[in-house]
């Protein structure tokens, strides 16, 4: 029931499943400012979608869903256009360097295992850093922030920034730039370029979109408020998604019908996810982000065990961990949105 024939991939696939996968990834993409490719590709694969088409189809979906999410974040004032433009340029350079390094290393031998270990290390390190930030640093910051926000009624005061961001802002190599939308008065262009080139390099080296690397980098290294980091990152995802969609379609790797139905769910989800950002404080978003990448790390660890042992059960478990995490986090975001919206409505009336 509800099966549709996908002529490009040559298989029958459940239409509701496509919409559901799209919806979950859309909510998370709109809420966290990521593309969500690392969820969709294994999710499609679990349910029998050909891997040859999974990545391209996913990129087509990412492009479509990020249009609406970017628009919504733009409306909420969550996009720093200047910073986003620099991010796109520097990320492309870094990405090219990362992928060139992989190509060189592949000539020496199989680098797949090294890449997966690096990926795993990055996921867990980021997760630990963000959990640490939530449990150790945030209670003080929240107090400072609430007082200052009340006084200024605007963007974050500098005191909410991480120590790494404060150090980065002290680099005085001209030209110096200001990013008023992000509340950054002065920062060296070179420092910003270095951060984005580094995140681009990592995404090129690991072969991932990089949204989950860029978003924390914007918060912890450049000192951008969480909501603006999400919106600005989505702008970069929009551009890279458009490029990925077209280039993979040219290689015949996009199943247009699957992408179409997934996008119906994803566009609705992305709007809901982006709206939820209004109701959740920055540290709450960062906590959920940390949970998400911790479970994604577990999934990659299971995948790595599968590569070592060749027991298919580990690969299946990896896919289910990822899908389970996506569904649970989607529910959390929707529940949080509903609860906070009702509270706001009560206060108004």
């Amino acid at each position, binding site marked *: 029931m509800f099966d549709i024939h996908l002529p490009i991939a040559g298989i029958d696939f459940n239409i509701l499943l496509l919409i559901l996968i799209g919806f979950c990834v859309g909510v998370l993409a709109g809420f966290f400012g990521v593309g969500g490719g690392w969820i969709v590709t294994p999710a499609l694969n679990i349910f029998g979608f050909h891997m040859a088409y999974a990545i391209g189809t996913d990129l*087509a979906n990412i492009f479509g869903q990020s*249009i*609406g999410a970017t*628009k919504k974040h733009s409306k909420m004032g969550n996009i720093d256009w200047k910073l986003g433009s620099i991010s796109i340029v520097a990320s492309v350079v870094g990405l090219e360097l990362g992928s060139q390094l992989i190509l060189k290393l592949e000539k020496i031998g199989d680098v797949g295992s090294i890449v997966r270990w690096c990926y795993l290390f990055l996921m867990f390190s980021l997760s630990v850093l963000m959990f640490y930030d939530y449990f150790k640093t945030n209670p003080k910051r929240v107090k400072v922030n609430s007082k200052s926000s009340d006084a200024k009624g*605007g963007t974050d005061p500098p005191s909410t920034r991480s120590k790494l961001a404060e150090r980065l802002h002290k680099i005085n190599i001209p030209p110096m730039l200001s990013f008023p939308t992000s509340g950054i008065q002065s920062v060296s262009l070179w420092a910003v370029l270095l951060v984005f080139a580094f995140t681009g390099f990592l995404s090129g080296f690991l072969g991932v979109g990089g949204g989950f690397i860029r978003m924390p980098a914007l918060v912890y290294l450049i000192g951008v408020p969480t909501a603006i980091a999400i919106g600005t990152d989505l702008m970069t995802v929009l551009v890279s998604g458009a490029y990925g969609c077209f*280039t993979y*379609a040219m290689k015949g790797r996009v199943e*247009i019908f699957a992408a179409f139905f997934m996008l119906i769910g994803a*566009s609705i989800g992305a709007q809901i996810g982006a709206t939820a950002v209004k109701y959740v404080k920055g540290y709450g978003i960062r906590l959920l982000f940390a949970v998400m990448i911790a479970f994604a790390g577990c999934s990659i660890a299971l995948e790595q065990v599968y590569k070592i042992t060749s027991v298919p059960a580990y690969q299946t478990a990896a896919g289910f961990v990822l899908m389970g995490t996506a569904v649970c986090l989607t529910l959390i975001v929707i529940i949080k949105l509903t609860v906070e*919206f009702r509270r706001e409505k009560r206060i108004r009336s």
Partner: protein
Amino acid sequence: MSITKLAAPLAIALAISFTLPIINHQYQTAYASETGNSQETELKHKIDTSKLSGVDYWIADMYNNDRVMYAVVVTLVMAVLGTSMAFLTDLVLKALGLEVSKISHRE
């Protein structure tokens, strides 16, 4: 204001997505004909269109015979569907009272 601001990156995104892969495709095709190396990542298989009809046939035929046009259609369909679905969802959310405007950022 926000739509005007979004139009520029969307236009840049589409321009980049259309031009770079075409240049890359032309370069790789020329390189492949010179060196005899095929493009490893490109799927070469043809879809059997004998049992297809309507939109399925049109898309599959385009996929078989004109990959550049197929890529243009895929990208435009995603852009149009993404924009229109976002617009419709926005209307529904507004009707439910979930309208958003510029927010103050709380860390």
